[in-house]
């Protein structure tokens, strides 16, 4: 029994326990807390599996932003309202157990039989071979912003769309009616002053580093969002745009990405075809814009979830 195996067993157990608790522990607050733990354990698992980019993203986005969103929600309503149970008390757990066991067996068996493909035939080696053509040196970034830039474009669109939809829940699609915490800030002022510059710096580093090593616009954007949220919670209203700059900030990333596509087509190169020698620079610039926009988007998601001032909710359309 090697150390690695022990570590793995510990990890697996931690994952299962934290996930199990997050899912089944009574009480919302505990559940959310356990989910935060789950996110952190998961980040370790990603790192263990040789996926540092994913680990970073998990830490920043899944544990960070998602955690913040969930915490904020659970703070507003720590207990859920009355719920009608379906059938006898034992029915749903039993059903879940039976179905879950069956599914695990069936899916697990199939998953174990799947692959692996012979080394060398998959996409991984090809990516490694072609990374240099992409203008960046980190393969994951090359995949995200060069080989599969279209996916990323759509992904940004998904994020933007989510924000737009959340905005549509508010009157006129604006957030000015959401009150910012004033003097009674839940976050100590000092923490804000200390943490924000660090976070922003970290974000900048992640962004730049992304071209050659793990990191990139998404991780950086998540960090930026964290900083903006902290600032707003610290009482700086303008940290997260809610008025005139709200939509431009949210949309700028997608707009930039699309513009890049339009320009490449207009230049006769085809959609999103980046030529030497500008491609590296262009990707970096695009990532910068994306970072800002993703930061804004995630921050807006956080703000938009909060209760607007009384009587200012999105009313009936005329």
């Amino acid at each position: 029994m090697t150390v690695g195996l022990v570590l793995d067993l510990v990890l697996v157990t931690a994952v299962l326990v934290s996930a199990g608790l997050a899912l089944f522990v009574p009480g919302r607050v505990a559940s959310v807390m356990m989910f935060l733990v789950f996110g952190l354990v998961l980040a370790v698992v990603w790192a263990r599996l040789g996926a540092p980019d994913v680990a970073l993203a998990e830490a920043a986005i899944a544990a960070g932003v998602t955690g913040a969103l969930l915490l904020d929600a659970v703070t507003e309503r720590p207990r859920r309202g009355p719920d009608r149970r379906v059938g006898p008390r034992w029915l749903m757990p039993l059903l879940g157990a039976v179905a879950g066991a069956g599914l695990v067996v069936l899916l697990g068996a199939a998953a174990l039989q799947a692959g692996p493909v012979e080394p060398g035939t998959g996409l991984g080696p090809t990516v490694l071979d072609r990374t240099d053509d992409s203008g960046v040196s980190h393969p994951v970034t090359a995949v995200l912003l060069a080989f599969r830039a279209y996916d990323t474009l759509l992904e940004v669109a998904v994020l933007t769309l989510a924000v737009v939809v959340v905005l549509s829940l508010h009157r006129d699609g604006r957030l000015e009616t959401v009150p910012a915490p004033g003097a009674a800030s839940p976050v100590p002022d000092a923490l804000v002053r200390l943490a924000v510059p660090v976070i922003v710096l970290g974000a900048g580093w992640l962004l730049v580093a992304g071209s050659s090593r793990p990191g990139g616009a998404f991780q950086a954007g998540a960090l930026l969002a964290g900083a903006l949220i902290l600032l707003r919670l610290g009482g700086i209203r303008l940290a997260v745009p809610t008025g005139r700059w709200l939509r431009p900030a949210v949309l700028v990333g997608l707009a930039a990405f699309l513009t890049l596509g339009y320009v490449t087509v207009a230049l006769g190169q085809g959609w999103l075809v980046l030529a030497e020698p500008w491609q590296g620079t262009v990707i970096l610039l695009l990532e910068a814009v994306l970072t800002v926009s993703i930061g804004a988007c995630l921050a807006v998601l956080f703000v938009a979830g909060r209760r607007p001032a009384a009587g200012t909710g999105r009313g009936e359309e005329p």
Partner: protein
Amino acid sequence: MTDGDVFLLLGVGLAVLGTVRLVLTGDHLRRVVALNVAGSGVLMVLVAVAYRSNPEEPDSVLHALVLTGIVITVSVTGLALAMVRRVERDEQDRQASHE
């Protein structure tokens, strides 16, 4: 069974666990949590697949896909939470106005 297989199974387990909880609970907020757990499970399957193909140099394409998946998940979570909170608020307001 290799270590990759273990995590593969773990991913499957998480996905099933999250899904079961998602569909059987009556609490919106916990659904969101369950959704995230299920999503993480699916992503873990992808990462495990990447790892299994070559533990030394896992498939970076899958990592990129997982990154995308994470961003999508957070988008969905943000939207879902906003809606959940709104729905619960409306319910509360309705109850309040009833009383």
